């Protein structure tokens, strides 16, 4: 496959559609607010049609100028209208591969392939996208990739067979519903609905409507309550439906040395990440899920950019009972200890967590008391609430060292447990403020590459000797004097 190839012509249509989607807001604004029922309307019509044709032309031209080939173990693409660009991606530098089939692609039996590399920060794109190629082509590329990885072995064909036995997680229908109902989705949709309703404030005189209603509603509070409840139920149903379409058939399996994730109903996606490219594993328990013992797991990949976070933080277990995670992941992600013995922070650190919370609350409370005289005093209630939150944060902060893996647990809003392989950690830091120093406490932070920037974990107010332990564990050269003895070469 060394001769340059074009993509399927549908790519031109997809490109055009994407451009229109990106420009839809200014375009509609131009068209709708531009026309005022005068003679100028005609020009606006022509202008709009002209712009559409331009989009289509540029879509076609960019398809025409785009070609790709596979040569010397590199994926080589060439594109560009005026400035000819070439991008050569060596196979061994590929961080992840993302196959997706949108509706347009499915109609024609095509597939979109996105290849991610660990691009340096700032350049913005670290990927090669083949918008629409035939499935045989895609399979071809994948086989060549596999063959190259196996070091010249030709038989990439058999790999498609070994599917079933390597599936290590398949989401059940119950879990799908659970996922939809406990994600942030419903909240987002409700606020969306509210925002939408209040958009029409200018046109619908709510006040008058409500006044008319009020007589009716006097004995009809139930009616309003029901209406509100109905809106919530609708929003929830919409969220469930959305999640259902997105995550239906969610499967994770191991193919050779790759992790392959498949999901989606209307738009099918398949995401491939080589196991040795995984930078860190993150288990996240949000506020709704944690009380039910539910959690989700992500792997962090060096591929992906700011624009699509989806390919740098890859969901591998959308929602499962937490105690199942070690069984599910340990056989596939080697070296990680998913049931670590977490060491917490010392009791004397608790005061620092509380103070940190109160430092945020205090100015708010003062302002509230000054400006809203009698009721402002209610803000004092914030202090115990904040203290309770601090207690949660305090209780959930901890660390563990298991061989080559550092585990940090901390709470932002959700509780996160991050597992980081020493070899993947980009840098490790230790912080001490004078107050911490007095109480012999330290903060430890570790950064792994995730997408364009870093990600990782930070735990505050660890026992100082514990921080020393982690610090010297990470150091390649024995810098501790009292010989903690767990520094590896």
């Amino acid at each position, binding site marked *: 496959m060394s001769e340059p190839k074009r993509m399927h012509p549908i790519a031109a249509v997809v490109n055009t559609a994407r451009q229109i989607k990106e420009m839809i807001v200014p375009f509609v604004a131009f068209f709708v607010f531009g026309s005022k029922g005068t003679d100028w309307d005609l020009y606006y019509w022509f202008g709009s049609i002209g712009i559409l044709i331009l989009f289509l032309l540029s879509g076609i031209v960019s398809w025409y100028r785009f070609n790709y080939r596979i040569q010397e173990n590199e994926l080589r693409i060439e594109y560009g209208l005026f400035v000819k660009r070439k991008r050569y991606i060596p196979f*061994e*530098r590929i*961080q992840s591969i993302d196959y997706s089939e949108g509706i347009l692609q499915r109609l024609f039996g095509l597939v979109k392939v996105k290849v991610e590399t*660990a691009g*340096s*920060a700032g350049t913005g794109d670290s990927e090669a996208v083949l918008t629409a190629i035939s499935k045989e082509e895609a399979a071809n590329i994948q086989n060549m990739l596999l063959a190259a990885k196996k070091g010249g072995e030709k038989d990439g064909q058999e790999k498609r067979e070994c599917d079933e036995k390597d599936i290590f997680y398949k989401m059940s229908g119950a879990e799908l519903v659970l996922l939809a109902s406990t994600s942030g989705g419903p909240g987002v949709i409700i606020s969306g609905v509210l925002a939408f309703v209040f958009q029409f404030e200018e046109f619908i005189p709510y006040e008058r409507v409500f006044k008319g209603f009020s007589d009716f509603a006097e004995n009809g509070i139930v009616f309003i309550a029901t209406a509100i409840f109905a809106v919530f139920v609708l929003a929830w149903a919409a969220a469930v439906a959305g999640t259902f379409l997105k995550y239906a058939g969610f499967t994770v399996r191991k193919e050779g040395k790759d992790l392959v994730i498949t999901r989606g109903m209307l738009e099918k996606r398949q995401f491939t990440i080589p196991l040795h*490219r995984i*930078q860190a594993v993150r288990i996240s328990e949000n506020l709704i899920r944690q009380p039910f013992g539910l959690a989700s797991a992500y792997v962090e990949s*060096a591929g992906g950019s700011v624009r699509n976070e989806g390919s740098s933080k890859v969901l591998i277990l959308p929602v499962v009972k937490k105690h199942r995670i070690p069984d599910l992941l340990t056989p596939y992600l080697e070296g990680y200890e998913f049931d670590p013995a977490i060491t917490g922070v010392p009791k004397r650190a608790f005061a620092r967590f509380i103070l940190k919370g109160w430092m945020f609350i205090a100015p708010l409370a003062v302002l509230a008391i000054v400006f809203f005289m009698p009721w402002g005093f209610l803000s004092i209630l914030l202090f115990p609430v904040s203290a309770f939150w601090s207690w949660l944060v305090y209780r959930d902060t901890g660390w563990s060292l298991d061989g080559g893996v550092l585990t940090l647990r901390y709470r932002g809003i959700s509780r996160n447990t991050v597992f980081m392989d020493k*070899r*993947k*950690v*980009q*840098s*490790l*830091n*230790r*912080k*001490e*403020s*004078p107050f911490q*120093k007095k109480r012999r406490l330290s903060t430890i932070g570790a*950064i*792994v*590459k*995730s997408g364009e*920037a*870093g*990600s990782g974990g930070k735990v505050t107010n660890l026992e100082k000797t514990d921080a*020393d332990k982690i*610090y*010297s564990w*990470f*150091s*390649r*050269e024995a*810098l*501790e*004097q*009292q010989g903690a003895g767990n520094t590896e070469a």
Partner: protein
Amino acid sequence: MIFEPQTRISRRALTVWKISGTINSFIFLLIGAGAVVALIMIYHWPVWIIPAFLALCLAYGYFFIFLFPELRWKRWRYEVREQEVELQHGVFIVKRTLVPMIRVQHVDTRQGPLLRKYRLATVAVSTAATVHEIPALDMAEAEQLRVFISRLARVAEEDV
């Protein structure tokens, strides 16, 4: 107890920081003076805010020209070992960072006009996800360090 890194940055860094602190304070003075004049002329604030403001300026100047640069210089330490770079810095909060050589992607040196005048340069060590700076090293030393680090980083060739 873990030993802290030993190498200090150039003493001339202190001079540079004091100069930039002076410029900084001067700008603060100008903007603040403008605001004070406006408050008194337009909003008829009491005149005693002038001495209050001057006191504030003095404190600001003291902190940014004398105290902070001194503390900062005293704290700044680094060490470049065969397999890692270690940094320590911070005025109040002391931060220590370990960067393994195998994670170093590239090393830059940089200097602005002020640093150039004092024959200083900043060395920036980049990993795939982070950038770590050692500010205000002697130019020759910075150049040496850059070559040294990039040579060590090259030996430890390993992918992300």
